[in-house]
């Protein structure tokens, strides 16, 4: 790993049109500033890690980019959609189509089986049943839990749950994958396997990945590492 400074920011790796372009993002809660004018771009297939101490605003930034949380100021254009000016129904539509999300605590829907969880985003998009079944099957196999397809979340191990969650996040072929500490709740062996899976899948599908993490292992799979402190980007590291 090699550490550079801000002036070396422009890496030649990703020259395509950025899939996410965020500028001047500001957000505060009850008068307390969380984000102070953050600029960020994400290109297709690019993996960016977002690191920083607790309370630095990582999750808030992720939620704003995912259209789950509202901005106080700034602009986000995701796949050409200006998130900052969309209504909640339209935002839901953007999430449905373009975004996949992975959580630290997996957040599988407890009353749906693993396969049903994975199938769910496709249903939301109105994908035909046959198509859904084949994609779910394919992803189950790809993440390696095909044998656990009909198990309910309560019956799965942490690693299995996160695999299912990754499958659910990718099943509808999103352009952006937002992951919040995807390995934070896993033992190190499972964590490593999940990170490898993420890298492979993002490479395969050219899905941009924004990864919030505390772990250097997780950051290591990314092309860039952004360091956030008190709601501002303070440095960027590029992985070789």
């Amino acid at each position, binding site marked *: 790993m090699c550490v550079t400074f801000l002036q070396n920011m422009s890496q030649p790796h990703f020259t395509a049109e950025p899939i996410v372009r965020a500028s001047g993002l500001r957000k505060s809660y009850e008068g307390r500033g969380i984000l102070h004018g953050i600029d960020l771009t994400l290109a297709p297939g690019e993996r960016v890690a977002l690191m920083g101490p*607790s*309370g630095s605003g*990582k*999750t*808030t930034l992720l*939620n704003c980019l*995912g259209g*789950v*949380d509202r901005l106080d100021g700034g602009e986000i254009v995701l796949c050409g959609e200006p998130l900052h000016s969309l209504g*909640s*129904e339209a935002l*839901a*539509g*953007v*999430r*449905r*189509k373009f*975004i996949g*999300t992975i*959580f630290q*605590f*997996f*957040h*599988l*829907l*407890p*009353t*749906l089986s693993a396969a*049903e969880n994975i199938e*769910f*985003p496709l*249903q*939301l998009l109105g994908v035909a*049943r046959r198509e859904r079944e084949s994609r779910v099957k394919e992803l189950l196999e790809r993440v390696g839990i095909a044998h656990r397809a009909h198990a309910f*979340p*309560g019956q799965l191990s942490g690693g299995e749950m996160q695999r299912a969650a990754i499958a*659910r996040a990718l099943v509808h072929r999103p352009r952006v994958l937002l992951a*919040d500490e995807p390995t934070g709740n896993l033992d190190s062996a499972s964590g490593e396997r999940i990170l490898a899976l993420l890298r492979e899948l993002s490479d395969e599908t050219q899905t941009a990945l924004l990864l919030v993490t505390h772990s250097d292992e997780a950051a290591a799979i990314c092309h860039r590492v952004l360091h956030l402190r008190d709601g501002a980007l303070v440095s960027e590291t590029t992985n070789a």
Partner: protein
Amino acid sequence: MNEAGLLRLLLRKFTLRHWRRGPGQAVLLVMILALGVAVYFSIRLANRAVLASFERFTDVLTHETDFVVSAPAGSLPETILPELRAALGARPVHMIPVIETTAARPRSDANAEIGSAETFRLIGIDLIGIQNLREEDTSAEPIRETWAGGVGNLNAIFVSPALTEQPGDRLPLLIDDRLVSLEIAGHIPARTNEPAAPASIIIMDLPAAQAITERRGQIDRVEFLVESGPDRAARRAEATKIVTDAAQGRWRVETSADRRESGAMMTRAFRLNLTVLSLIALLVGLYLIYQALDGAVLRRRQEIAILRSLGVEERTIQRAWLLESLLVGAVGGTLGALLGWAGAQFAVRFVGRTVNALYFANSADSAHLHFGEFAWTLVLSIAASIAAGWAPARTAAQMPPAQMIGRYHTAGPGPRLLRSRTLAVALIVLGALAAKLPALHLAGGTRVALGGFFAAGAWLFAGGIVSGHLLRGLGALVRPLGNLSPLARLAVSHLSPPSGRHRLAAASLACAIAMTAGMAILVGSFERTMQQWIATTFQADLYISSAGAQSASSQNRMMPATWQRLASDPAVADANVLHAADVVFPGGKSMVIGVNTQFDRQQGTVAWLGGTPTQWPDEGEFTFVSEAFVERFGTQRGDLLNVPTPSGTRALRVAGVFADYGSERGSVLIDRAKFVEWFREDAARTVIVKLRDPAVAESLRTKWLAENPGLQIFTNAHLRTEVLRIFRQTFSITYALEAIGVCVAVLGLALTLISVLLDRQADLTTLRALGVSRRGMAISAAMEGLGTALAGLLAGLAASLLLGWLLIHVINKQTFGWTLLLAVPWPALVLLAVLVLSAALIAAAIVGYWGAGLPADREE
């Protein structure tokens, strides 16, 4: 810190803060309990008010009297008074002879509804002798000269200050069949610290009242008040014994307690039914409090685990949660009592009207807040709340310290009792066995269908269990629907298997619907039966009675000259003259009716049970008894019945049993001629007329009404509608209670969904992240609510069929003695189903929309 201090701290820092943070739920929870409590409390207060109004007038003027002498049949001759005084010798006892009748305001419209005219109890009392009671009223300044102007003036009356008319005014009244105008000589005095006399009481000097009712020399009862002083109890017992021993069958002696008890007893079944009905809402509320608290435990499990890891003991946690239940109970109970007090002002009119129609004249017009009832209701509310909070508090206490809070901790499947198939089957079987038990017979002829009530309870509970299984089955059945829509999949996934919350919501709805629909079946069957009975019974052309006859308890009669004039009108082909007298049989009070049985025979206007009789009362010593009489007194066809009359007891053979849905006290039919001879009473209650030409009925009615302003005359069609109207009016309070029960259940369903959505706050965030819109979440919740409601509805309707059967063939039959034909009012049930489902759908959608807006449940 001691435990009490710790509990206070937990209450202040946790419980109350949670309430403040989520005031909506706290308010909803308290309101559900309050509503349940309010319904119960209002019925209790209304019942109490109606019973209290049964107390005798002397209670208004002075102390409650000690005992009362009245005739077993008809009235008492005044000649017994000196005899009673002689028997008592020098013992200081006040004797207060009383004559009582009903009087009504004259109608403004000949077609007015029965019961619409204001009815009074006209009480004749010796206004001179009554002044001796002032010697008993030692507490207050004696009232003087109150009755001035009332003595010796045959038209003077005293009224309540609550009446619109004031002293100096004249009050027109219908007494028997005459219209009289009486002078208001003054107000009925109220004792210090006692409420004023109710507006429905009118007092008149005894001789004047005897004259105006043409009952000179007769009294209805004598009230006895043993003078105050030392050894009053012993002197009272002695006086009671002397008067009892002197009776020799000529009179009956009842103590005040007996008498109030008999009023209470007469209406006990009715009041019990109302109270049971009023408990539906509270019962349903209990289900809901249970799950609201259980949900709160689930949501606050992290906090509990932290508290435990900080060293708070299990016991303390449990107590803190019980304390929270207690608070809910206390706040809900108090609020409910206030609400119920307001509600009682309405309820009392319904209850009073029904009691008036079925049992006795009463003057209840408002219900007072009763501290004892309030305290009892509060205790009930708190006890119920604590009972409902017991299991959640245990769950909370059993939360291990510093537990790794599992993300997939979902609401459990609910109490095992509510899932046990074996229990459901056992309950159904037990209920069926209990339904076979005979009624419990209490003194005074009251019957309580204890087995029936047990069966109802058992089947209701079984219905609750079934609803849970139904919910599960329903969920499995519609699971494939999940392929059609992700929202449906989501909704269905919550129902199969259902959580304990869903089961409870479905069970409470099933309970409310079963009772509501069960009652609807009873009422529907009753109505159908009534219609058939009416068709058989009401076949004559005109029905005539005093215009003062406003209810079953009215005493207004038609004087012989009046009815003889009508019956001899050339347009009349045949007339049946009915006389009636209250009679006390050894088992309780009933009524003897004198009729022209030939008329009935010719017109075929009696609905016979067990076949048309072969012997008739005009042919010998025979009588017919009503079905309710058979049920109350156990007298069967062919038995010899001893009928007390003023001229001695008469033994009559029961030759037939007829249906009579007008009275649950039962009645005994004898021949008119014998009635007149035995009861020495030729004034009639009703005259039924068959015309030579039925077409002239309306014009004859107009003519007769003009000639007799004191009469009310119904044509056949008009009377039939009136009977059905009164019948429906009688049940109006029942509908109100059920409607509230169903409302509470639907509200409860909303509360369940709120609780469920709060449990699922994390999932909601996930769904949002997955791109489910707020509308989508509302739709999903609506489907979930609809499914739950559907299971509750189906189980409830199924149970209601059983309950309907039970109400008709066991509870009603045992309590009132009426045979009814089972008729299921499908349109009403369909309407109920549609209403419940739409209400559930709307409530769930609203809750879902609200839930989708809950803040994200994410930690950094």
